[in-house]
Protein backbone atom coordinates (compact mmCIF):
# COMPACT_ATOMS: atom_id res chain seq x y z
CA UNK A 1 0.00 0.00 0.00
CA UNK A 2 1.36 3.44 -0.96
CA UNK A 3 1.15 6.62 1.16
CA UNK A 4 0.58 4.55 4.31
CA UNK A 5 1.90 7.30 6.60
CA UNK A 6 -0.58 9.83 5.20
CA UNK A 7 -3.44 7.34 5.53
CA UNK A 8 -2.57 6.50 9.14
CA UNK A 9 -2.19 10.20 9.97
CA UNK A 10 -5.48 11.20 8.30
CA UNK A 11 -7.69 8.39 9.55
CA UNK A 12 -5.85 7.98 12.86
CA UNK A 13 -5.96 11.63 13.94
CA UNK A 14 -9.63 11.98 12.93
CA UNK A 15 -10.79 8.88 14.80
CA UNK A 16 -8.70 9.72 17.88
CA UNK A 17 -10.03 13.30 18.01
CA UNK A 18 -13.66 12.14 17.66
CA UNK A 19 -13.18 9.41 20.26
CA UNK A 20 -11.54 11.87 22.68
CA UNK A 21 -14.47 14.27 22.19
CA UNK A 22 -16.97 11.48 22.94
CA UNK A 23 -15.09 10.61 26.14
CA UNK A 24 -14.99 14.28 27.20
CA UNK A 25 -18.76 14.59 26.57
CA UNK A 26 -19.48 11.51 28.67
CA UNK A 27 -17.21 12.64 31.51
CA UNK A 28 -18.78 16.10 31.63
CA UNK A 29 -22.27 14.62 31.52
CA UNK A 30 -21.42 12.19 34.31
CA UNK A 31 -20.25 15.03 36.55
CA UNK A 32 -23.27 17.29 35.87
CA UNK A 33 -26.07 14.68 35.85
CA UNK A 34 -26.18 14.01 39.62
CA UNK A 35 -26.95 17.71 40.25
CA UNK A 36 -30.10 17.57 38.09
CA UNK A 37 -33.27 15.79 39.28
CA UNK A 38 -34.34 12.87 37.08
CA UNK A 39 -37.67 14.51 36.24
CA UNK A 40 -35.70 17.36 34.61
CA UNK A 41 -33.81 14.94 32.33
CA UNK A 42 -36.43 14.57 29.63
CA UNK A 43 -34.79 11.64 27.81
CA UNK A 44 -34.70 9.68 31.10
CA UNK A 45 -38.41 10.13 31.78
CA UNK A 46 -39.67 9.62 28.21
CA UNK A 47 -41.54 6.46 27.28
CA UNK A 48 -38.62 5.09 25.18
Amino acid sequence: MTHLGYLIAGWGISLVVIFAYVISLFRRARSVAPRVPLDRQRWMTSSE
Partner: protein
Amino acid sequence: MSTRKIFKRNQGATSSPKSRLLGLATLFGLVTLFVFAFFLTDPDVRLHPTTGEEIGQFDAVRLLYLHVPMAIIGPYVAPLVGAVASVGYLIKRTQWWDVTAHAAIEVGAIFCGLVLLTGSIWGRPVWNTWWEWGDVRLMTTLILFLMLLGYLALRRVAPDGQKQARRSAIVAIVAAINLPIINRSVEWWESRTLHQKSTLSELKIEDLTFFTLMMGIVVFLMLFTWLVLHRFRLGWLEKESLEQDVLTSIEERRSEATVNEEGTL
Protein backbone atom coordinates in the same frame (compact mmCIF):
# COMPACT_ATOMS: atom_id res chain seq x y z
CA MET B 1 -11.09 5.69 35.12
CA SER B 2 -11.23 3.20 32.25
CA THR B 3 -13.06 4.01 29.01
CA ARG B 4 -15.40 1.05 29.58
CA LYS B 5 -16.46 2.46 32.95
CA ILE B 6 -17.05 5.91 31.46
CA PHE B 7 -19.32 4.44 28.76
CA LYS B 8 -21.13 2.25 31.31
CA ARG B 9 -21.69 5.05 33.82
CA ASN B 10 -22.90 7.42 31.09
CA GLN B 11 -25.99 5.24 30.69
CA GLY B 12 -27.72 7.40 33.26
CA ALA B 13 -26.44 10.75 31.94
CA THR B 14 -27.02 11.50 28.26
CA SER B 15 -27.87 8.07 26.88
CA SER B 16 -31.28 6.64 26.10
CA PRO B 17 -32.24 3.34 24.44
CA LYS B 18 -32.70 5.01 21.05
CA SER B 19 -29.43 6.96 21.27
CA ARG B 20 -27.60 3.74 22.19
CA LEU B 21 -29.13 2.06 19.13
CA LEU B 22 -28.00 4.95 16.93
CA GLY B 23 -24.54 4.78 18.52
CA LEU B 24 -24.23 1.06 17.78
CA ALA B 25 -25.43 1.53 14.20
CA THR B 26 -22.89 4.35 13.74
CA LEU B 27 -20.08 2.20 15.13
CA PHE B 28 -21.05 -0.66 12.81
CA GLY B 29 -21.18 1.83 9.91
CA LEU B 30 -17.71 3.17 10.72
CA VAL B 31 -16.21 -0.34 10.80
CA THR B 32 -17.94 -1.22 7.48
CA LEU B 33 -16.72 2.05 5.94
CA PHE B 34 -13.18 1.27 7.07
CA VAL B 35 -13.33 -2.20 5.46
CA PHE B 36 -14.68 -0.78 2.19
CA ALA B 37 -12.21 2.12 2.16
CA PHE B 38 -9.11 0.03 2.83
CA PHE B 39 -9.83 -3.48 1.54
CA LEU B 40 -12.61 -3.50 -1.06
CA THR B 41 -12.05 -0.36 -3.15
CA ASP B 42 -9.16 -0.09 -5.58
CA PRO B 43 -6.42 2.51 -5.45
CA ASP B 44 -6.57 5.28 -8.04
CA VAL B 45 -4.16 4.12 -10.75
CA ARG B 46 -4.44 5.15 -14.39
CA LEU B 47 -2.11 4.91 -17.37
CA HIS B 48 -0.74 8.04 -18.98
CA PRO B 49 -2.24 8.19 -22.52
CA THR B 50 1.07 8.85 -24.27
CA THR B 51 3.85 7.53 -22.03
CA GLY B 52 1.94 4.56 -20.56
CA GLU B 53 3.32 5.49 -17.14
CA GLU B 54 1.16 4.80 -14.05
CA ILE B 55 -0.40 8.00 -12.74
CA GLY B 56 -3.14 8.89 -10.19
CA GLN B 57 -3.51 9.26 -6.45
CA PHE B 58 -2.71 5.60 -5.72
CA ASP B 59 -3.69 4.65 -2.14
CA ALA B 60 -3.89 8.29 -1.03
CA VAL B 61 -7.37 8.26 -2.60
CA ARG B 62 -8.56 6.31 0.48
CA LEU B 63 -8.57 9.65 2.33
CA LEU B 64 -11.49 10.60 0.05
CA TYR B 65 -13.88 8.43 2.09
CA LEU B 66 -13.00 10.36 5.24
CA HIS B 67 -12.35 13.89 4.01
CA VAL B 68 -15.40 14.36 1.74
CA PRO B 69 -18.05 13.17 4.26
CA MET B 70 -16.52 15.41 6.93
CA ALA B 71 -16.31 18.26 4.36
CA ILE B 72 -20.07 17.96 3.85
CA ILE B 73 -20.87 17.96 7.57
CA GLY B 74 -18.26 20.32 9.06
CA PRO B 75 -18.55 23.30 6.72
CA TYR B 76 -22.17 22.78 5.53
CA VAL B 77 -24.58 20.65 7.59
CA ALA B 78 -23.42 21.68 11.08
CA PRO B 79 -23.29 25.48 10.53
CA LEU B 80 -26.63 25.27 8.69
CA VAL B 81 -28.26 23.43 11.62
CA GLY B 82 -26.64 25.96 13.97
CA ALA B 83 -27.94 28.90 11.94
CA VAL B 84 -31.48 27.48 11.65
CA ALA B 85 -31.57 26.79 15.39
CA SER B 86 -30.25 30.32 16.03
CA VAL B 87 -33.04 31.81 13.93
CA GLY B 88 -35.41 29.58 15.90
CA TYR B 89 -33.98 30.98 19.13
CA LEU B 90 -34.33 34.61 18.00
CA ILE B 91 -37.99 33.94 17.15
CA LYS B 92 -39.03 31.63 20.01
CA ARG B 93 -36.49 32.63 22.71
CA THR B 94 -36.50 29.16 24.26
CA GLN B 95 -33.54 27.23 25.65
CA TRP B 96 -34.19 24.28 23.32
CA TRP B 97 -33.18 26.27 20.23
CA ASP B 98 -30.15 27.83 21.94
CA VAL B 99 -28.81 24.51 23.24
CA THR B 100 -29.40 22.89 19.81
CA ALA B 101 -27.44 25.65 18.03
CA HIS B 102 -24.59 25.38 20.53
CA ALA B 103 -24.44 21.58 20.15
CA ALA B 104 -24.45 21.68 16.33
CA ILE B 105 -21.77 24.36 16.15
CA GLU B 106 -19.46 22.71 18.68
CA VAL B 107 -19.59 19.38 16.81
CA GLY B 108 -19.33 21.28 13.50
CA ALA B 109 -16.18 23.08 14.66
CA ILE B 110 -14.53 19.71 15.37
CA PHE B 111 -15.47 18.35 11.95
CA CYS B 112 -14.41 21.60 10.26
CA GLY B 113 -11.00 21.45 11.97
CA LEU B 114 -10.61 17.82 10.92
CA VAL B 115 -11.55 18.71 7.33
CA LEU B 116 -8.74 21.26 7.19
CA LEU B 117 -6.32 18.78 8.76
CA THR B 118 -7.20 15.77 6.59
CA GLY B 119 -7.27 18.04 3.52
CA SER B 120 -3.76 19.16 4.33
CA ILE B 121 -2.58 15.56 4.83
CA TRP B 122 -4.26 14.51 1.56
CA GLY B 123 -2.90 17.54 -0.30
CA ARG B 124 0.75 16.72 0.43
CA PRO B 125 0.97 13.54 -1.72
CA VAL B 126 -1.61 14.68 -4.32
CA TRP B 127 -0.84 18.39 -4.81
CA ASN B 128 2.66 18.32 -3.35
CA THR B 129 1.78 20.95 -0.76
CA TRP B 130 0.50 20.93 2.83
CA TRP B 131 -1.25 24.27 2.52
CA GLU B 132 -2.01 26.84 -0.19
CA TRP B 133 -2.81 30.34 1.03
CA GLY B 134 -4.14 31.37 -2.38
CA ASP B 135 -6.73 28.57 -2.58
CA VAL B 136 -10.14 30.18 -2.16
CA ARG B 137 -11.93 27.06 -0.91
CA LEU B 138 -9.26 26.51 1.75
CA MET B 139 -9.41 30.14 2.82
CA THR B 140 -13.21 30.35 2.97
CA THR B 141 -13.31 27.10 4.98
CA LEU B 142 -10.62 28.44 7.31
CA ILE B 143 -12.64 31.65 7.81
CA LEU B 144 -15.73 29.57 8.66
CA PHE B 145 -13.70 27.46 11.10
CA LEU B 146 -12.45 30.63 12.84
CA MET B 147 -16.01 31.95 13.01
CA LEU B 148 -17.20 28.72 14.62
CA LEU B 149 -14.36 29.01 17.15
CA GLY B 150 -15.41 32.62 17.70
CA TYR B 151 -18.95 31.45 18.43
CA LEU B 152 -17.66 28.96 21.01
CA ALA B 153 -15.36 31.60 22.56
CA LEU B 154 -18.28 34.04 22.80
CA ARG B 155 -20.28 31.45 24.71
CA ARG B 156 -17.50 31.24 27.26
CA VAL B 157 -16.75 34.94 27.76
CA ALA B 158 -20.20 36.54 27.52
CA PRO B 159 -22.28 36.66 30.69
CA ASP B 160 -24.65 33.76 30.88
CA GLY B 161 -28.27 34.17 29.97
CA GLN B 162 -30.37 35.64 27.21
CA LYS B 163 -27.78 38.22 26.17
CA GLN B 164 -25.20 35.49 25.58
CA ALA B 165 -27.65 33.37 23.60
CA ARG B 166 -28.74 36.35 21.47
CA ARG B 167 -25.17 37.40 20.62
CA SER B 168 -24.18 33.82 19.82
CA ALA B 169 -27.22 33.37 17.58
CA ILE B 170 -26.22 36.43 15.55
CA VAL B 171 -22.66 35.08 15.11
CA ALA B 172 -24.05 31.70 13.96
CA ILE B 173 -26.29 33.37 11.38
CA VAL B 174 -23.43 35.56 10.10
CA ALA B 175 -21.19 32.46 9.82
CA ALA B 176 -23.83 30.76 7.65
CA ILE B 177 -23.44 33.51 5.02
CA ASN B 178 -20.09 31.88 4.25
CA LEU B 179 -21.67 28.55 3.25
CA PRO B 180 -22.73 29.39 -0.33
CA ILE B 181 -19.38 31.15 -0.85
CA ILE B 182 -17.48 27.98 0.16
CA ASN B 183 -19.74 25.88 -2.06
CA ARG B 184 -19.47 28.06 -5.17
CA SER B 185 -15.82 29.12 -4.68
CA VAL B 186 -14.50 26.47 -7.11
CA GLU B 187 -16.83 27.84 -9.80
CA TRP B 188 -16.40 31.56 -9.11
CA TRP B 189 -12.62 31.50 -8.72
CA GLU B 190 -11.81 28.48 -10.88
CA SER B 191 -8.23 29.61 -11.53
CA ARG B 192 -7.52 30.29 -7.86
CA THR B 193 -8.13 26.87 -6.36
CA LEU B 194 -6.50 23.46 -6.38
CA HIS B 195 -9.87 21.89 -5.63
CA GLN B 196 -11.73 20.32 -8.52
CA LYS B 197 -15.34 21.04 -9.40
CA SER B 198 -17.99 18.66 -8.06
CA THR B 199 -17.57 15.11 -9.38
CA LEU B 200 -20.44 13.81 -7.25
CA SER B 201 -23.26 15.58 -9.08
CA GLU B 202 -21.94 14.55 -12.49
CA LEU B 203 -21.20 10.93 -11.48
CA LYS B 204 -17.63 11.04 -12.73
CA ILE B 205 -16.42 8.38 -10.30
CA GLU B 206 -16.54 4.60 -10.42
CA ASP B 207 -19.38 2.53 -8.97
CA LEU B 208 -17.73 1.05 -5.86
CA THR B 209 -15.88 4.29 -5.12
CA PHE B 210 -19.17 6.15 -5.42
CA PHE B 211 -20.98 3.61 -3.22
CA THR B 212 -18.27 3.80 -0.53
CA LEU B 213 -18.32 7.58 -0.65
CA MET B 214 -22.11 7.63 -0.26
CA MET B 215 -21.84 5.16 2.61
CA GLY B 216 -19.23 7.44 4.21
CA ILE B 217 -21.59 10.42 3.95
CA VAL B 218 -24.46 8.46 5.56
CA VAL B 219 -22.22 7.08 8.34
CA PHE B 220 -20.79 10.51 9.16
CA LEU B 221 -24.29 12.01 9.15
CA MET B 222 -25.27 9.36 11.70
CA LEU B 223 -22.16 10.16 13.72
CA PHE B 224 -22.95 13.87 13.59
CA THR B 225 -26.55 13.24 14.73
CA TRP B 226 -25.38 11.02 17.58
CA LEU B 227 -22.77 13.57 18.73
CA VAL B 228 -25.20 16.49 18.52
CA LEU B 229 -27.79 14.50 20.47
CA HIS B 230 -25.36 13.83 23.31
CA ARG B 231 -23.99 17.39 23.22
CA PHE B 232 -27.54 18.72 23.33
CA ARG B 233 -28.35 16.62 26.39
CA LEU B 234 -25.14 17.73 28.08
CA GLY B 235 -26.01 21.37 27.36
CA TRP B 236 -29.50 20.78 28.75
CA LEU B 237 -28.06 19.22 31.90
CA GLU B 238 -25.70 22.18 32.34
CA LYS B 239 -28.57 24.68 32.05
CA GLU B 240 -30.72 22.66 34.46
CA SER B 241 -27.80 22.34 36.87
CA LEU B 242 -27.32 26.11 36.80
CA GLU B 243 -31.02 26.64 37.56
CA GLN B 244 -30.85 24.10 40.37
CA ASP B 245 -27.85 25.97 41.85
CA VAL B 246 -29.82 29.23 41.77
CA LEU B 247 -32.88 27.57 43.38
CA THR B 248 -30.67 26.00 46.08
CA SER B 249 -29.05 29.38 46.82
CA ILE B 250 -32.47 31.05 47.11
CA GLU B 251 -33.65 28.29 49.47
CA GLU B 252 -30.50 28.68 51.59
CA ARG B 253 -30.95 32.46 51.80
CA ARG B 254 -34.60 31.99 52.80
CA SER B 255 -33.80 29.51 55.54
CA GLU B 256 -30.98 31.77 56.79
CA ALA B 257 -33.42 34.69 56.87
CA THR B 258 -35.99 32.60 58.76
CA VAL B 259 -33.39 31.53 61.33
CA ASN B 260 -32.27 35.15 61.79
CA GLU B 261 -35.90 36.31 62.22
CA GLU B 262 -36.55 33.60 64.83
CA GLY B 263 -33.35 34.62 66.62
CA THR B 264 -34.43 38.26 66.78
CA LEU B 265 -37.88 37.34 68.09
